[in-house]
């Protein structure tokens, strides 16, 4: 066993059972999956991306490039590419290795490694060019795709929930190591709201591997926990640092009730970044074998988790901290075969201590190669030549089962850089450090370089490695020093080009350990310094973040609000078919037993034409326009004339954009001299109000006019049909029927409820729209139904509404119009106030393009065979063989009233082509001959609606 008998922060009284690749293992509470695997002697945990080389546990934290596993918590809860180093062990955890077949130990795809001399950086750009133009897509791409791609995506919907939270704090501290805890304590004492987050389950950071510090750590955390102004967020990663100290945090919760993660979006007065530093690996041949590990990670496994990851270790050291790791492992019972000191000499004090411990230190040494398959078994220690490369001819073998790499430290400046802070190269420390900040941010601890000491400069760490075989920089993507050198040779000089060409730093660890080394190799190849080569930009996320956390609760029915009108529940009870219209759900038809939608629509249409129909029009947008200048305001906005509209009268209004195209339409009624009731399309309610407010506030601020949205206040019930008045009359009080012609509006009572009653028609029949307070809608609807029963009242839906209006040639904005249609195109020039010198869009109507005689104009269309229904969207062509579109079908329906299909369309110079035959394209057959007719199929004189 490699688990130590004592020590570490694991709870040996709480064993936890888990499995990896089907084998059962045991760990303890406090373990990560990685520490538990190591405790069970498991080093081989994965395969690399490209060459499928064996991969072991490389680190002890989020920077892990190698130990990626699949965690399976059940259907929909399978998660790929999870870093074993950050997964807290829980009872029953099921983990599997990835990217191997048939097994982790024997992976056939590892044969790719044999061809690695061919498959260098960017090889795929240079080949797969044939045979044939589609060779890549047809032949080669499928092969490449199968080889790539690490883990498996989940296959079932994720049953768990994700939450969002907005938060504010005077101080956000990122990182709960010693610097972060100290900063949080200081801030909390000043009475500020403090949020302290850390990506790990336990607070303490580097202190968690320093047993002497544990009592004080516990006391500090207790103090923070006792302070009500302090919010402690463990397992929470600050992954995005945006403008104005807006930081996004991903918190892993995994609550028993199914809440998995929460995305915090936090605005902070000041941010303290205490994000620490990451240890640098070292490029040398064979540095990717399982058992090659960052030195400090090995130390943490011993001291924090009580695991001894190797019995006979060697260390390659370029920084003093490597000795602490080697000593810690020795203290825990490991033999130290050798310490290879890359520097010319080891620091005297450390050398003395090593000698005292009986450890052999080889100065100015590197590694010429390693041995081993699924785990390292030995290395070739070699003195370094003048160029820094190990001299293989003078190498001596050293047996070991664990090799530590201590390449020095890179401060974690990711978030500082995301916040557009400037990074400056500190040549003494050989690292980029936070410089001038753009945000209210402080860096504390190792991420600011505090407490760090220099080791061998990174360019020397990489010196000579560019010619070494299989010296990995990015062990997940299998990017070697040679790949980087090749890219430079091929002219990729910008570090961004090198990154993209080699994929260095683009693996799931986002280059946390590979970027600096890649930079050093490029610098070496170009003969420049690291800061001259520059740095790739740091972008969110700091670590990969669940899609689910971003989406939060906005899923399923909560993805977008489902808006329903007051009569919705009634319609549901009637078994209506619904359609989404924007966010609204609207009843599309009310099929009776045995009816399909077409049959229902035919029945509903005939009922309206012959008797009376009732329709929920509540979703129409409504705006109350009030004030002494209300009429003048409308005059300036809409194309129509409004000043002379009588009180109690209505007009069909048309609104353009400044570019002259139709934007919205609707009936406007004048309730009083200074009060209009304006309606908009369902989809246009918000945007019309926004546009009118814009003109009111910014273009015409001198007008005394106000706008109030009343869309949600009024429920609107349309009664349409020759019997509509008969249904309504018994229920209406306070209306002078004698003065209530078509296009009139009055305030009265309907079924005892205060109402605004419009006499308007979108069907061509005698029609009314009853506006009542929304809460009264169902009661009034029921009263109308009762009153209408003797008259054959029939509820109808949006589809019938569409057919009825098309039979009359009334346009629907968004169906007949598409943002490119002018009033004249739609045959609505008659609406434009003749005496008006200006309104929104008027100037655009006289641009040359708008005056072209061949503009597409609204026409009616009837199939010559009186039976073929053309497709909505079908193109109109002059002959069945023509390839030139002259317009398109905007609407097409089977009309029960007319007895054959009817359509509306936009046709070039259409109004002059009545009687012509035009052809409508058909996706599954020859084009349909259509007769061009006037766009009105029922009661062209409009006598019915005046009845």
């Amino acid at each position, binding site marked *: 066993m490699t688990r130590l008998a004592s020590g570490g922060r694991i709870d040996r009284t709480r064993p936890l059972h888990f499995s990896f690749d089907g084998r059962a293992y045991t760990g303890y509470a406090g373990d990560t999956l990685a520490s538990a695997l190591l405790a069970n002697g498991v080093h081989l945990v994965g395969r690399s991306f490209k060459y499928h080389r064996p991969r072991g546990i490389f680190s002890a934290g989020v920077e892990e490039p190698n130990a990626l596993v699949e965690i399976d918590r059940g259907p929909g809860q399978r998660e790929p590419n999870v870093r074993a180093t950050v997964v807290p062990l829980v009872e029953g955890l099921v983990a599997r290795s990835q990217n191997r077949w048939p097994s982790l130990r024997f992976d056939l795809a590892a044969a790719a490694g044999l061809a690695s001399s061919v498959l260098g950086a960017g090889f795929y750009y240079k080949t797969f060019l044939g045979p044939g133009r589609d060779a890549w897509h047809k032949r080669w791409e499928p092969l490449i795709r199968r080889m790539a791609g690490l883990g498996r995506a989940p296959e079932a919907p994720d049953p768990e929930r994700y939450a969002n939270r907005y938060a504010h704090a005077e101080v956000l501290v990122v990182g709960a190591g010693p610097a972060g805890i100290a900063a949080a304590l200081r801030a909390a004492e000043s009475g500020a709201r403090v949020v302290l987050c850390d990506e790990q389950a336990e607070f303490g950071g580097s202190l968690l591997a320093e047993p002497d510090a544990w009592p004080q750590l516990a006391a500090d955390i207790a103090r923070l926990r006792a302070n009500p102004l302090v919010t402690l967020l463990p397992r929470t990663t600050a992954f995005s640092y945006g*403008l104005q100290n807006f930081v996004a945090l991903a918190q892993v919760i995994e609550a028993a009730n199914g809440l998995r993660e929460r995305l915090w979006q936090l*605005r902070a007065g000041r941010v303290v970044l205490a994000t620490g530093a990451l240890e640098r690996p070292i490029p040398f041949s064979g540095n990717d074998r399982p058992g090659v590990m960052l030195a400090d990670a090995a130390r943490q496994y011993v001291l924090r988790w009580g695991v001894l990851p190797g019995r006979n270790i060697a260390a390659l050291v370029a920084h003093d901290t490597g000795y602490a790791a080697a000593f810690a492992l020795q203290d825990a019972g490991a033999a130290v075969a050798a310490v290879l000191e890359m520097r010319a000499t080891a620091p005297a004090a450390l050398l003395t201590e090593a000698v005292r411990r009986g450890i052999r230190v080889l100065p100015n040494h590197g590694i010429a190669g390693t041995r081993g398959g699924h785990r390292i078994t030995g290395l070739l220690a070699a003195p370094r030549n003048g160029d820094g490369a190990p001299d293989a001819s003078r190498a001596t073998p050293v047996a070991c089962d664990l090799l530590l790499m201590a390449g020095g430290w890179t401060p974690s400046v990711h978030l500082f850089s995301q916040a557009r802070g400037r990074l400056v190269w500190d040549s003494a420390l050989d690292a980029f450090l936070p410089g001038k900040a753009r945000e209210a941010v402080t860096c504390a601890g190792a991420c600011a370089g505090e407490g760090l000491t220099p080791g061998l400069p990174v360019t020397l760490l990489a010196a000579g490695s560019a010619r070494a075989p299989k010296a990995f920089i990015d062990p997940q993507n299998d990017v070697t020093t040679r790949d980087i050198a090749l890219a430079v040779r091929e002219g990729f000089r910008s570090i961004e080009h090198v990154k993209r060409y080699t994929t260095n730093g683009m693996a799931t660890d986002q280059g946390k350990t590979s970027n600096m080394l890649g930079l050093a190799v490029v610098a070496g190849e170009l003969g420049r310094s690291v800061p001259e080569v520059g740095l790739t930009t740091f972008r969110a996320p700091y670590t990969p973040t669940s899609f689910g956390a971003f989406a939060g609760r906005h899923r399923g029915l909560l993805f977008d609000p489902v808006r329903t009108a007051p009569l919705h529940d009634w319609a549901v009870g009637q078994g209506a078919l619904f359609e989404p219209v924007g966010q609204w759900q609207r009843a599309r038809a009310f099929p009776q037993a045995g009816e399909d939608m077409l049959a229902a629509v035919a029945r509903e249409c005939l009922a309206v034409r012959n008797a009376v129909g009732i329709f929920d029009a509540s979703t129409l947008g409504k705006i109350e326009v009030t004030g002494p200048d209300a009429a003048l305001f409308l005059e300036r906005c809409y194309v129509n004339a409004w000043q002379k509209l009588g009180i109690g009268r209505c007009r069909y209004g048309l609104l353009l954009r400044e570019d002259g195209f139709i934007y919205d339409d609707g009936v406007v009624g004048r309730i009083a001299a200074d009060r209009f009731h304006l309606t908009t399309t369902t989809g246009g309610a918000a945007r019309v109000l926004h546009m009118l407010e814009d003109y009111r506030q910014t273009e015409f601020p001198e007008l005394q006019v106000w706008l109030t949205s009343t869309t949600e206040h009024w429920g609107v019930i349309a009664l349409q049909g020759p019997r509509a008045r008969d249904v309504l009359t018994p229920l209406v009080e306070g209306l002078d029927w004698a003065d209530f012609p078509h296009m009139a509006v009055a305030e009265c009572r309907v079924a005892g409820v205060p109402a605004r009653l419009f006499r308007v028609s979108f069907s061509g029949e005698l029609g009314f729209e009853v506006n009542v307070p929304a809460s009264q809608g169902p009661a009034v609807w029921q009263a109308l139904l009762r009153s209408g029963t003797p008259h054959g009242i029939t509820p109808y839906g949006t589809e019938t509404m569409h057919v009825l209006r098309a039979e009359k040639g009334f346009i629907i904005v968004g169906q007949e119009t598409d943002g490119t249609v002018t009033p004249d195109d739609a045959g609505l020039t008659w609406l434009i106030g003749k005496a008006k010198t*200006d309104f929104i869009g008027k100037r*655009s109507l006289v641009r040359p393009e708008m005056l072209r005689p061949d503009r597409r104009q609204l026409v009616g269309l009837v199939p010559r065979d009186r039976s073929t229904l053309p497709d909505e969207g079908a193109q109109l062509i002059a002959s069945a063989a023509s390839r030139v579109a002259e317009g398109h079908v905007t609407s097409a329906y089977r009309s029960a009233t007319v007895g054959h299909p009817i359509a509306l369309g936009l046709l070039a110079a259409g109004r002059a082509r009545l009687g012509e035959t035009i052809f409508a394209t058909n996706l599954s057959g020859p084009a349909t001959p259509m007769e061009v007719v006037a766009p009105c199929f029922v009661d062209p004189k409009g006598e019915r609606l005046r009845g």
Partner: protein
Amino acid sequence: MLLIHCPWCGDRAELEFRHCGEAHLVRPADPAALDDTQWAAYLAFRDNPRGWARERWRHVHGCGRFFNALRHTLTDRFAATYKPGEAWPEPPI
């Protein structure tokens, strides 16, 4: 997500606002007097500066007011927000 200072409501999250294009474009008093090029200049042609931009916002999910802002388009930082009709502030140096 930007934090925007509404001249009436103070600092609020960008979610409550709508950007409404370049500011200080005055609708011509007599559009009919403009030729097509001049009218197109009003409709479509914009400064689109890299640097300080004068722009309009509306606190659409707040007090509903339109206002103007001076914002740097390279850093997205606001120097000032101000009410319609007020003179534009000079950009910071």
